[in-house]
């Protein structure tokens, strides 16, 4: 019997179709995995089920009852519970109070703490969980907090439990306990929608697997009838359709950056090198430690171990300024949060990293600043009537070009691009690729972090794959292969 059916769900955002005519059926009491690369549409799908997102078309059928869209209240009252990666718990309240938050059991006007603790204990007992209902949530480890979230959902009579990467923050012992709870939930008739990148646990826990790719459902398969390789093929098996601008062979034998055993900021034992004129790609899933490694190289986070040689000389930047001065630039991932100074002009944004260099006795050389901004406006084709325009008035792609201009102006030898084309249109994308090519043809080196498989394969000379804060694989261009990369990226 199907407890939940999604029928032809489509969700469009400006310029992108997040879900395209997706239909999935969920059977009562099964654990059903949703897998796919970053951006495949998993989150949008969950949000459609929880009422956080309204689909443009399609139907959601819960136990025979049809909806064209849900609200969070409707979703909850029809038995859909979600365990997000970020918990919704109040640390300074007890476990029982959290479970009954907003629905406190009362005796007259007074909250009946004893009754709540009793009810909470009942739920825990049922699933063999050893948590004291009177403990403060802030005193629990992440693993136990997650179990409190699950108990909270169950106390709301959830019959469909959506779990978004539940094992990601857990230690392996905690994960084991989670798996046991999931098995018990299944046995008691709860349907689990399990989102995970970890193949091992998917094969261990689930009955069926649905693969999403680029907003489309590729297939739903029985877990017992598939294997890891077939699954990866389904996840990545698209044709490489975009063509990437050609570049001249320009890799020199000279090594520019040599990183040995770099640790800290959530990553450990990272070793790799980049030659002059080379584009090195960093592939991996979100949270694999790519941005964190970039922050270490750029002096934006604290290194605990390891050495970094730039041009054979050791560098250990403690601040971004030191990194910039030694010839490293970082075009950050989060353009709005970490890159653009929205209330400032294109001119100011361009000159920001070199202001002191173009100043005499503290006074900015206005002519030089203007020239710099005009030069980059021309050379990387920032579409704006004037460099005196505020950056917030530009499109995403042009904003990104301004940030890149800021870093080119600092005349770096190594440019780290972190997700350089996220959220920008196709035209601007290809211009940024051309720019990367121009950089390496000029003898500079590029480290390119990208979650888009096509992009990282299309642009890199070599790819290093990260997983769980460590390097899990490394490939030369002739060995590039989506499945191999995906396998490296989802290793446990």
């Amino acid at each position, binding site marked *: 019997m199907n407890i939940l059916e999604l029928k032809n769900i489509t969700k469009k955002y400006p310029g992108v179709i997040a879900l395209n005519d997706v239909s999935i059926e969920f059977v009562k009491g099964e654990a059903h995995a949703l897998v796919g690369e970053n951006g495949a549409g998993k989150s949008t799908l969950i949000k459609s089920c929880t009422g956080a997102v309204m689909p443009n078309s399609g139907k959601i059928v819960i136990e025979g009852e049809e909806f064209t869209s849900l609200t969070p209240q409707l979703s909850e009252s029809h038995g859909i519970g979600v365990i997000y990666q970020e918990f919704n718990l109040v640390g300074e309240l007890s476990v029982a109070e959290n479970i009954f938050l907003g629905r406190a059991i009362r005796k007259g006007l007074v909250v009946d703490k004893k009754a709540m603790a009793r009810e909470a204990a009942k739920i825990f007992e049922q699933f063999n969980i050893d948590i004291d209902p009177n403990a403060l949530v802030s005193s629990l480890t992440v693993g136990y907090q997650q179990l409190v979230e699950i108990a909270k959902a169950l106390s709301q009579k959830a019959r469909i439990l959506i779990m978004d990467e539940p094992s990601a923050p857990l230690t392996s012992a905690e994960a084991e306990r989670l798996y046991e709870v999931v098995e018990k939930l299944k046995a008691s008739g709860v349907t689990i929608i399990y989102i995970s990148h970890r193949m091992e646990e998917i094969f261990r826990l689930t009955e069926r697997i649905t693969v999403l790719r680029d907003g489309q459902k590729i297939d739903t398969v029985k877990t017992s009838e598939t294997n890891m390789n077939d699954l990866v093929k389904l996840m990545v098996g698209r044709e490489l359709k975009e063509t990437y601008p050609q570049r001249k062979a320009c890799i020199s034998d000279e090594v520019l950056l040599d990183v040995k055993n770099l640790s800290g900021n959530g990553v450990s034992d990272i070793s790799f090198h980049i030659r002059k004129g080379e584009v090195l790609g960093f592939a991996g899933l979100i949270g694999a430690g790519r941005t964190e490694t970039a922050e270490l190289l*750029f002096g934006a986070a604290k290194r605990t171990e390891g050495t970094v040689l730039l041009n054979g000389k050791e560098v250990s930047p403690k601040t971004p*300024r030191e990194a910039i001065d030694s010839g490293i630039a970082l075009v*950050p991932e989060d353009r709005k949060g970490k890159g653009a*100074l*929205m209330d400032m002009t294109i001119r100011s944004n361009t000159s920001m990293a070199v202001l002191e260099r173009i100043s005499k006795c503290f*006074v*900015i050389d206005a002519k030089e600043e203007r020239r710099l901004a005009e030069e980059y406006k021309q050379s990387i084709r920032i579409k704006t009537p004037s460099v005196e325009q505020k950056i917030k008035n530009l499109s995403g792609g042009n904003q990104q070009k301004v940030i890149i201009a800021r870093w080119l102006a600092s005349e770096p030898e190594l440019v780290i691009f972190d997700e350089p084309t996220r959220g920008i249109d196709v035209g601007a994308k290809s211009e940024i690729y051309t720019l990367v090519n121009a950089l390496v043809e000029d003898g500079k080196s590029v480290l390119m972090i990208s979650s888009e498989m096509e992009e990282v394969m299309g642009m890199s000379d070599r790819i290093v794959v990260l997983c769980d804060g460590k390097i899990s694989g490394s490939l030369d261009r002739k060995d590039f292969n989506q499945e191999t990369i995906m396998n490296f990226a989802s290793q446990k």
Partner: protein
Amino acid sequence: MGHLENLKGTANAVDFAKRNGIYVVLLVLIGFFSFATENFLVSNNLMNVARQVSMLGIASVGFAFVLLLGGIDLSVGSVITLVNVVCGWFMVNQGMNPVLAIVLTVAMATLIGFANGWIIANIQMPPLIVTLAMMIIIEGVAFLISKGVPIYGFPESFAVIGQGYLGPIPIPVVIMAVIMGIGAFILNKTYFGRYFYAVGGNEEAAKLSGIKVKNVKYLVYSLSGLFAGIAGIVILSRTNSATSNVGEGFELEILTACVLGGISVTGGVGRISNVVAGVLILGVLSNGMVLLNVTEFTQMVIKGTVLLIAVAFDCMQHRKTS
């Protein structure tokens, strides 16, 4: 394309109005009081207004820097009090040369500002709390030194600063003009002035662009202390007597002037030229209302309302753009 050009035209007009609207408000106020009272539009009185606001104007430059940074400095009023008391004490009780006394007390004010900046940058406490605590401490110290008794009897030469004239223009007004000029120069021409905007607009992006954010904070809060110190000296010279409550509530008046002048309370946006207008509006309002025989308490109601409207306008702008 023509349509787009038109849009851009109106956008520019709106931009212009937003930038300079405050001067229209100032002119309307001046016009109103000129008609409503006989004595307002007299050169004597106008010069009087300028002299009355000069202390406010001087201190508001440093305060504007702090607001641009996304911070606040509640200790400004108490620094002015302490400067009065200490400078007076140096000259009267210690018989110190006025120049030396001025230099030492202004340096002290700057150091207090630096202390604010150091705590805010390194311990990462909210500026509101740091400067509030500092304000309470300084008020206490000022009282301990003066014991609540006014200090007076300064050397005659000291009076020049607050009471002298340069040609027809009172010296406090000259000092205000110079300091506002310096303030505008810092913001428009120097790289560290540009950093104030960058840090106030997006601290993380500023840091990743190689700006030493801590140093910027030290500098800004030190300048706030410095300018408050100079304002304190001018007040002392004008009143010729140091009392332990002279700076009380001054920070709020400065805040009003800055916000009126379009310095965003959320940081990153604002110009000194408009702060000048904000300061003048407050001065014209006070002076005009006195001439109209508006009681002190009604004045408070009106000034509070003005502050509320100015902040509301700022917040509405912010919501629209984000």
